[in-house]
């Protein structure tokens, strides 16, 4: 059982890392600020979500799992807010091509 959970953790965390990599590739390849925001908010949130999901079976008590989920929710809130702030500024300052 614990071996299965360990395998689950390794798979989920590695998959999360792949999403972070894809987000970073998008950040480098996408043409403008607004498009790059898509890469950062979407791909990285799924990446972090998968890493949190993978770490859940490794927590010793259920409250530690709540801590992990709270961390994920706070990152979602922050990235959702910041991406809108940047998007608003970008739309004002760089006219769409």
């Amino acid at each position, binding site marked *: 059982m614990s071996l299965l959970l360990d395998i689950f953790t390794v798979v989920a965390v590695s998959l999360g890392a792949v999403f972070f990599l894809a987000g970073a590739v998008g950040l480098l390849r996408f043409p403008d600020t607004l498009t790059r925001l898509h890469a950062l908010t979407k791909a990285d949130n799924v990446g972090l979500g998968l890493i949190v999901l993978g770490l859940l079976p490794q927590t010793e008590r259920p409250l530690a799992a709540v801590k992990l989920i709270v961390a994920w929710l706070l990152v979602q*809130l*922050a990235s959702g*807010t910041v991406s*809108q*702030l940047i998007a*608003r500024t970008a739309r004002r300052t760089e006219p769409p091509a």
Partner: protein
Amino acid sequence: MTFALAFDCGLAVLILAMAIWTIAARTTFPAVVGFVAYGLLLTLVWMRLAAPDVALTEAAIGGGLTGVLLLGATSRLRATEPPAVSERPSVPFRLAVAGLCTLLSAAIAAVVLLLPDPAPTLAPEAAAKLSLTGVGNAVTAVLLAYRALDTLLESAVLLLALVGVWSLAPDRFWGGAPRSLALRHRDGSLSLLGQVLPPIGIVLGVYIVWVGADAPGGKFQGATIIGAMWVLTMMAGLQTPPEISQAWVRVILVAGAAFFLAVGIAGFWLAGAFLAYPTGFAKSLIVAIEVALTLSVAATLGLLVAGPPARPVRT
């Protein structure tokens, strides 16, 4: 090469790259952004150096609050920023400075390589006396018991810095409120963040202060989080900075240092020396001082970011 050392090497390269970027950037804004990233990378280094208390401080103050301060100043001075290229000093001057700075770096590097081995350390002494304080975190014991005088003076320095900032106000604004921190373009998503995050930040800040007695954390780190929540509500336009002549503002600002000083003076009678704690009460007194300092430090940090008064007193 072990994995850990490879990771450290990567971290060191990233930090040096961010530092070079910060110094070499043409305009101020990217330089400040680079500096914030540099502060966050340093946080990782402090974790690698087994100093989680410092890592928390660096993340909260070094990266976060200093970043807010510098970004605010950058945007207010942007109009006056001249084209950087024309203002640069001559090449020979820059080469000479670069040479001298390289010499300095080389000298420090030599000192690092020549540090004595085994290294002198106060860790055993700090650990031996830890049970007397009742505190579990040695860094907190240093800050509030062994070298409490440093921390008392530090809280005084924070207040003095705030008095210094306030004293820059023109006479007609003395006693009034600092300028509003609200962003020029009102933004719904930022006010949502300013509504949802502060209560969570308060729980987190109190936790970090509370846990600091026995685990990584402490009043400066927790107070910075609480102070940052206040700054966030002010930036989201949900609150305005208070008038600095109001009595409650001043009471909160000095409460921490005043209480600390009172405990210190009481030490003369109760324990025979300034800032000595009576046996058995050390931990309770340390926690009480931390709580009192937390509110004061949070308010001081918030008002340091807000700056000098810029509006006349409302009558």
